[in-house]
């Protein structure tokens, strides 16, 4: 079984390209056994979503909701 460290590298890599069959099997079997790495993988996806939201100017940064200048 691959290590947690290697697993996190695959979790990062799968955000960039499709994993090969061997990589998918190695990742999948590790994730089945390891809650920490499953959390890690979920959180990378969450960070990607956050980055996209932030880059679109939709982060909640101001206490003043009028800052959006837009109707809801």
């Amino acid at each position, binding site marked *: 079984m691959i290590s947690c*460290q290697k697993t996190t590298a695959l979790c990062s890599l799968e955000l960039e390209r499709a994993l090969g069959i061997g990589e998918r099997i190695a990742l999948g079997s590790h994730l089945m056994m390891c809650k*920490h790495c499953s959390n890690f993988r979920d959180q990378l996806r969450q960070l990607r979503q956050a980055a996209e939201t932030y880059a679109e*100017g939709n982060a909640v940064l101001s206490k003043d909701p009028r800052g*959006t200048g837009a109707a809801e």
Partner: protein
Amino acid sequence: MSVHPAPAPLQETSEQRAGVVFCSRSVVSFRPDMVRFAMLQVRNHELAEDLVQESIEAALRKSESFEGQSTLKTWVFTILRNRIIDHLRKADRFVNFSSLTEEGEELEDQLQVLFNEHGRWRPGARPVAWPSPEEALSSQQFWLVFEACLTVLPDRTARVFTMREFLGFDVEEISAQLGLKPNNCHVILHRARLRLRACMSEGWAPTQGTS
């Protein structure tokens, strides 16, 4: 409907139909958020200010092309992102990238903090589940920590990460732009994500227990 009550000095004609009004005062009020966004990427205050200024002027100039399909802020941020992309494509890649601070051997140190000699998570570093994405993205605290954690990324790491995640460059283009090998680029992205995730866990997510 809570349309911004401020009277817009510019025309407020057809844009009102879609429920989103072009308002030049709102555009200007986005400046602080825009400067912080640009700074996270270019790491130079003067340059960030210039890019934001150009973007605001461009937004005011072509207000009639704002169609109310998105929020005004999203529209303005699109203009800013395109300015930053143009800047990064134009800039001399080697000067551009090599002038940024190098982080040296920090990667090995970082990995040793997170993983033991067998590559397993150290007890204090184990990822604990976060609240739901909906809860996170609507929390001001989440965003403050997100910005703070991006700010403390080393410059080169931040450049690669933000080109990928904010501007939508793919690894091939980042590598070509910055004179990196794609594999090196993957390593930098992995490093950035490890750091950012760990930093977010400390500053924002609940840290009860280590399970």
